[in-house]
């Protein structure tokens, strides 16, 4: 396992926000994470990178990545890990690049960080190769640009180039395509898939679009209001969702569940409980169509089929 997390809890300002997350990613695997905006996906990613903002704290029974025990990692270990085995790309590529530094300086920083042995020109050549790898034309000219001169897609490609510079074993992609328009989205996902296949790195792909996950991921876990509510192989989870929230998500996909085109899309009524709010029983209960008295009890993760790591936080 490249990444394995057991019972990860994250508190925001002392209040529990994310509750007992357990998951793992194997080498070369793509784990998809779906969930509504605000359910805490980014928080988990930041916790994995040790980049939680002030006032947000994480605790876990076990958390290790690339063979490093993250619970015991000091700031030096974290830095070694971030510039080495793990890398992350962010939701909004335009704000994730430093507006005052050229692409060259930012990219070289990553290259140098990964390979201290390279001299200036070799590092530059490596940077050009990386830009070429992520499909940027006129790489030489692009190195001289400032981020505000780039399009969103191009900026995200450069983020990817910086992230893979060190040849990470795990890439965390936090909604890499949300801020981009649809045609570019497909290209970026394609690129990530290619790089994954070439390098054999594992990918933790976060999205709130279940279509994207279906297309790219091997396994998926569905998050709702700070919890993992369902997990399993992509085909199984999307083909026969067990948790009512997953069902809702799948049904809300255009052109699915055998609906004729142009028919009304299914929606999930109501809105998410803020993740820091304490609730008795199932957190989805207020929005669930099938809720009954049993839902007043806390719902543990239930194994569905023993052999396939499928689980759901619903008694149905």
């Amino acid at each position, binding site marked *: 396992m490249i990444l394995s997390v057991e019972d990860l809890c994250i508190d925001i300002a002392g209040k529990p926000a994310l509750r007992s997350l357990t998951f793992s990613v194997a080498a070369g695997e793509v784990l998809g994470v779906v969930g509504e905006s605000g359910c805490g996906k980014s928080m988990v990613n*930041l916790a994995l*990178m040790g*980049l939680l*903002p002030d006032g947000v704290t994480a605790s876990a029974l076990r958390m290790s990545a690339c063979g490093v025990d993250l619970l015991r990692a000091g*700031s030096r270990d*974290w*830095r*070694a*890990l*971030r*510039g*080495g085995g793990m*890398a*992350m790309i*962010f939701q*909004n590529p335009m*704000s*994730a*690049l*430093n*507006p*005052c*530094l050229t692409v060259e300086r930012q990219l070289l*920083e*990553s290259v140098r*960080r990964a390979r201290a042995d390279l001299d200036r020109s070799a590092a530059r050549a490596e940077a050009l190769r990386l830009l070429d790898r992520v499909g940027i034309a006129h790489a030489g000219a692009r190195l001289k640009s*400032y*981020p*505000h*001169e780039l399009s969103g897609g191009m900026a995200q490609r450069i*983020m990817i180039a*910086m992230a893979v510079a060190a040849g990470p074993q795990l890439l965390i992609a936090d909604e890499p395509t949300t801020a981009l328009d649809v045609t570019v989205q497909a290209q970026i996902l394609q690129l990530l898939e290619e790089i994954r296949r070439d390098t054999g790195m594992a990918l933790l792909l976060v999205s709130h679009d279940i279509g994207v996950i279906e297309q790219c991921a091997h396994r998926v876990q569905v998050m709702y209001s700070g919890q993992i509510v369902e997990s399993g192989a992509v085909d199984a989870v999307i083909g026969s969702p067990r948790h009512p929230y997953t069902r809702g998500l799948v049904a809300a996909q255009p052109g699915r569940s055998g609906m004729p085109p142009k028919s009304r899309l299914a929606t999930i009524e109501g809105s998410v409980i803020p993740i820091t709010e304490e609730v008795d029983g199932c957190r989805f209960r207020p929005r669930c169509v099938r809720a009954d008295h049993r839902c007043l009890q806390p719902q543990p993760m239930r194994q569905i089929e023993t052999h396939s790591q499928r689980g759901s936080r619903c008694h149905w």
Partner: protein
Amino acid sequence: MDIFRKASCRRLLELSTTLLGVTLLAFFLIRLAPGDPVLLLIGERGSDPAQYREMAMRLGLEKPLVAQYLQFVGSALQGDFGVSVVSHQGVIGELLARWPATIELGVSALLIACAVGIPAGVAAAVYRNSVLDYLIMTVSIFGYSIPVFWWGLVLILCFSIGLDLTPVAGRIDILYDVPPATGFMLVDTLMPQVIEDYGLSAFGSALGHLVLPALTMATVPLAVFARTTRSSMLEVLSEDYIRTARAKGLSELRVVWRHAFRNALIPVVTVGGVLFVTTVITGAILTETIFAWPGVGRYIVNSVYARDYPVIQASILLIGVFVILVNGLIEYFYSAINPAIGGRRAG
């Protein structure tokens, strides 16, 4: 880029209207002051009729205002601001002779303020809500509120009278006879000839005389630098690209200085430009008075006491031009330091 150029053209136009305003202010100054402008300009006592007639001609009071104004601007452009009532010397020469002393003091003060204030602000931001942060911010709000003229006296009280470490007034000990080469005492005392005569002791004396006034003048800008740097650093440190830099595994030192500091500097530069002007002029007026520093500030104050209107007129004009030039330069620097700003302003 073209739109950007248009934007800076507009700004240039704005700056030149302000310049126009400054000339108008200087022009109307003597015409608004109570009394006969001619008498104001030649001084009331001991004016003989010939001198009176000459000045009246020069002002062209019988001509329409526009013509008078053009004549005023015309002679100002040629560097002719008339003659001081007190010294009967050309005003421009008197002002320029005092300018280096003021600049020397102002620049030293600003350097002290930058060197202490900016790192303090960065430290306060990086260790926010720590004891260090509270300490720096408390000191800086005191520094910001301090009456400069009192602070100078308190420093004299402590360091000159109490500890007897520094001299109280002037630029250099009267023992030394330093020929004015550049007007900057620190430079002049390092001239080969001076070193031959006195060794480095003249330089030491000049430095000793500079310390207290420079510290006095530095206090307010130091506090402003610390506050501005802190808030701007805090803002930048919460930006996405700082998270990216951390995600790359860069050291905290590198994240703070390379990724955050440069970007946080932009508002600091703007504030610094404004401060430079206020420090040099405002600080000069009060500090030079306290420390008997022979600069422009003290000269202006003395001219007001003596009702030396030609000097006041020229000072406003020159200082106005100086301020506008500095502002223009700052704005140029501002767009040069952050490429994105130029682009964004254009868009």
